[in-house]
């Protein structure tokens, strides 16, 4: 057993850190760390910077433009990005659709779409969830009927993250309504500027707009935009969900949140002393830190196994559950730490360029909102209940 990184891996970390320091604008890092809203341009800038070194598409084979990183290198880069306050990589094109096209796409589809993902020409969103199909994805109802060279698509998608930025959507549609739920589904690429598409914002309980409803009315999609075989879209969907599980524990995010918590607890006073010295609060923090340390190792065990060529197993479900619990707990403790100053909320202070006077410490403003926003993490990407069902079935044989 060896818990340290090899010299090569440590060297890679140094290189990654230097690259990020050079390429990530300090103002952008400050926005990320301060919990401000990011614009579409912010994400595009960071994607473009990464792509200057072929470091955007981590999961793509080298021949398609991937960097050829090991699982450990991906983990290291992820840690460094998050520690530095880089925007997250928007996963829909590069981490979700890309691998699906590489695996299931025609040569023409690959040649056309993959370079546009890397260049940022397309912003993709995901058309999976529907109002009637939450955890039960296979019950989706959006219909696609073939007429000559087109599919005519009708239906409604929801929880479409950043769909208001997207010009393209990959979408699961039902092409055979008489088949069993998981059969009769197809995987389509849909131009968001097509007539018949309407994107409506969903405002979440933190008052923010990040997700959308997408209404599709008689939308015409060329048959060339079918990925894989007709009625076999579930295969693509499952493959994609497997990729979504990389980095599923979000350890680096939790580490960043924990550092922030430590700062808040040091700077906040209770009974005239730092809150970090309060026995009950210190115990809450220590329990969380221990959970986080253990999860870090648990996550590294998975990464090391992947580096040895083992496919990610059902343990990913366990990491998803614990990862969201730890991250939610960190956001809960930050909120608690702030005491009364968790109450004031100035939505305008989340905007770029706002330079009014904060109420209480500058970092207090987004804290409660972030706590509420993070409730989503145990719901989306396969809710924690679904993860438990999966693990019980696949790993425990129940």
């Amino acid at each position, binding site marked *: 057993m060896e818990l340290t990184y090899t010299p090569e891996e440590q060297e890679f970390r140094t290189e990654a850190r230097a690259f990020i320091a050079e390429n990530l604008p300090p103002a952008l890092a400050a926005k990320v760390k301060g919990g401000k809203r990011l614009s579409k341009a912010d994400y595009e800038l960071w994607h473009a910077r990464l792509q200057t070194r072929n470091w955007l598409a981590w999961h793509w084979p080298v021949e398609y433009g991937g960097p050829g990183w090991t699982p450990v290198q991906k983990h290291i880069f992820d840690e460094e990005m998050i520690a530095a306050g880089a925007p997250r990589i928007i996963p829909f094109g590069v981490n979700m659709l890309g691998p699906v096209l590489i695996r299931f796409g025609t040569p023409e589809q690959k040649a056309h779409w993959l370079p546009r993902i890397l260049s940022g020409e397309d912003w993709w969103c995901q058309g999976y969830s529907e109002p009637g199909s939450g955890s039960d994805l296979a019950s989706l109802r959006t219909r696609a009927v073939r007429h000559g060279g087109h599919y005519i698509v009708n239906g409604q998608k929801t929880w479409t993250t950043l769909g208001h930025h997207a010009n393209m959507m990959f979408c699961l549609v039902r092409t055979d309504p008489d088949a069993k739920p998981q059969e009769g589904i197809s995987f389509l690429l849909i131009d968001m500027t097509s007539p018949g598409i309407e994107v409506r914002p969903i405002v*979440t309980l933190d008052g923010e707009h990040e997700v959308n409803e997408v209404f599709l009315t008689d939308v015409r999609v060329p048959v060339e935009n079918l990925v894989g075989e007709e009625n076999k879209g579930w295969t693509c969907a499952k493959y994609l969900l497997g990729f979504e599980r990389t980095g599923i524990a979000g350890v680096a995010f939790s580490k960043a949140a924990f550092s922030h918590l430590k700062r808040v607890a040091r700077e906040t006073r209770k009974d005239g002393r730092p809150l970090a010295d309060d026995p009950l609060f210190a115990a809450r923090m220590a329990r969380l830190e221990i959970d986080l340390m253990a999860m870090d190792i648990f996550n590294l065990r998975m990464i090391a196994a992947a580096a040895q060529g083992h496919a990610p197993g059902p343990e990913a479900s366990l990491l998803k559950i614990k990862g969201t619990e730890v991250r939610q707990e960190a956001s809960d403790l930050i909120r608690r730490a702030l005491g009364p*100053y968790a*109450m004031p909320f100035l939505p305008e202070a989340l905007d770029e360029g706002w330079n009014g006077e904060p*109420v209480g410490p500058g970092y207090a403003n987004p804290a409660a909102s972030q*706590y509420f926003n993070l409730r989503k993490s145990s*719901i989306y990407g396969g809710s924690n209940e679904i993860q438990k069902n999966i693990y019980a079935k696949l790993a425990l044989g129940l």
Partner: protein
Amino acid sequence: MDFTLSEERRMLADTAARFLADRYDIATRHRAAAAPEGFDRKLWAEMADLGLIGALVPPEAGGFGGAGEDVALVFEHLGRALVVEPFLASGILGLWPLVRAGESDLVEAVIAGRTLVALAHGEPESRYAVHEVATRANEGDGWRLTGRKSVVINGDSADLLVVSARVSGDLDAPEGLALFLVDPAAPGVTRRGYGTVEGGRAAEITLDSAPARPLGEPGQAFALIEEAIGRGTLALAAEAVGLMEVCKDTTLDYLKTRKQFGKPLGAFQALQHRMVEMVLEIEQARSAVMLAAGTHQADRLTRERNVAAAKHLTGRVGRRVAEEAIQLHGGIAMTWEYPMSHYAKRLVMLDHLLGDTDHHLDRFIRLGREGGAA
């Protein structure tokens, strides 16, 4: 032993429930919260007319209630309807010192909803401590106050401020505290109002030699401040029970109607058990509030310790109920459009008002030691 409501209280409960059901739907609530003052003066006046403020004041002071049970009853109903009108600020925290100081004209005006009063007590460094006050009061040409008060609930729209200040003693001494009436329009008073995350309003207030009139004997106000805050704490614990009830009912309805994998969510045993655990914890929280309400007229230690227990437990259970209610729903409960999400938000944020679960656990322990328990 009797846990049923008296005839008077049953009438009060019916009045509140009927008015809120008829006149205070979620759209009205959101409109009120979005108004500049963060509530609706007209609705406030109507609620005052119905006696919902008077119910919080004892008969000898011009009200027709004022017992712990009255406070709990009114606030549980306010919680059920997610009312944003300033009952905590002007019905309890600001009003109670006036009641105890015998300011009968002011009390009457507040009960009638004509005057809005708020308690400016917390400070940037005091967190939830009742006795930590840095704001100074100096006597000379009348009394003058200097200091900063923070997160003063409804402090931005109050017509009158009840302000705590120190006439003597160290920063954290219970001795040497005083309460004053301050006109927010007076010279030396600056208010900065803002919204709070769950839809209320509060203010940062700076006092720079602001003129003030003492309430009672300056230096002896700790007991009164503690009493007002204890009363407010009971009110919030009761409000939490009302909020939890709605979260529970909404979730139960959703489990019965929403279908996944071909059957209602409520058919899944894992969710059934979590739902039962939620109900059980709510009944425990309700019981703690009943105890605090029913002993609110007892000696200080009993009263304050039971209030601390109720706030601790409603805080602990409240977080769990809010999180479980959202989780059992899934995405829909993450949306602004879904009314329950606002209940869950208020439920969690109550932990930041008048002391969180850890503060009250600590207080429960300390009061127990004072009383020779533990």
